[in-house]
């Protein structure tokens, strides 16, 4: 046994864990989030996604524009922000036309669409969490989200969950 093999036995390996803070509700950034999450989960990683602020749009039960949330301003924001189907792209959105073009191109080129990636994340049991503080601002409740959302968390719990792995902010 050479020194490399010996050191591999002695040194503990970094746990295969990926935690993503999904801040952006943009279509392209959500594609990046769910591509990384599903790819990692399928290759044996424990994956946690912490949805906060605009990112919460991705996990709303109502996928289009709906008056989701509490209070007058909450409902207006809920409608304007929309859900997964109304996510804009971060550049060249062209008044909301671009996400439809991207979905068409993704289907045509046999690349998983955002909706397919979200379904894959559910099937692979990716751990999805919602940010308590952002939900409070927007008047959202856990029941406004898809049932795969495991829990509502604060920063301290997310840091505990993500400890020892890699963390990305998207």
């Amino acid at each position, binding site marked *: 046994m050479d020194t490399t093999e010996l050191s591999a036995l002695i040194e503990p390996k970094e746990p295969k864990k990926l935690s993503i803070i999904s801040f952006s509700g943009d279509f392209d950034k959500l594609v990046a989030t769910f*591509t990384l999450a599903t*790819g990692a989960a*399928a290759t044996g990683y424990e994956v946690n996604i912490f949805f906060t602020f605009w990112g919460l749009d991705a996990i709303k039960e109502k996928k289009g524009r709906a008056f989701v949330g509490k209070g007058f301003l909450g409902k207006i924001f809920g409608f304007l922000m929309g859900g997964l189907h109304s996510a804009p792209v971060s550049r060249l959105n062209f008044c909301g036309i671009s996400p439809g073009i991207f979905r068409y191109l993704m289907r045509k080129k046999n690349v998983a669409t955002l909706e397919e990636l979200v379904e894959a994340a559910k099937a692979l049991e990716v751990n999805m969490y919602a940010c308590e503080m952002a939900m409070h601002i927007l008047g959202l409740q856990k029941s406004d989200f898809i049932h795969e959302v495991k829990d509502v968390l604060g920063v301290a719990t997310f840091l505990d969950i993500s400890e020892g792995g890699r963390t990305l902010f998207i």
Partner: protein
Amino acid sequence: MSTVKLDITKEHCPMTFVKTKIALSKLQSGDILEVLLVEGEPLQNVPKSSREQGYKVLEVSHVEGLVHKVLIEK
């Protein structure tokens, strides 16, 4: 013991891994998954990640052109 076939030659990242993982999760212990995949990322990483997750890669063989066959035992 049964053999299940999976063709991911037309899939792209991450669905190559996703479809393999989901197919493996549906198998019983001892069943075999026969995966058709192409050279590059899928050929390099589907057998590797399967091994890392404790599955047994029985065979990696060339089929034709860019297509390869990987046999994975659960």
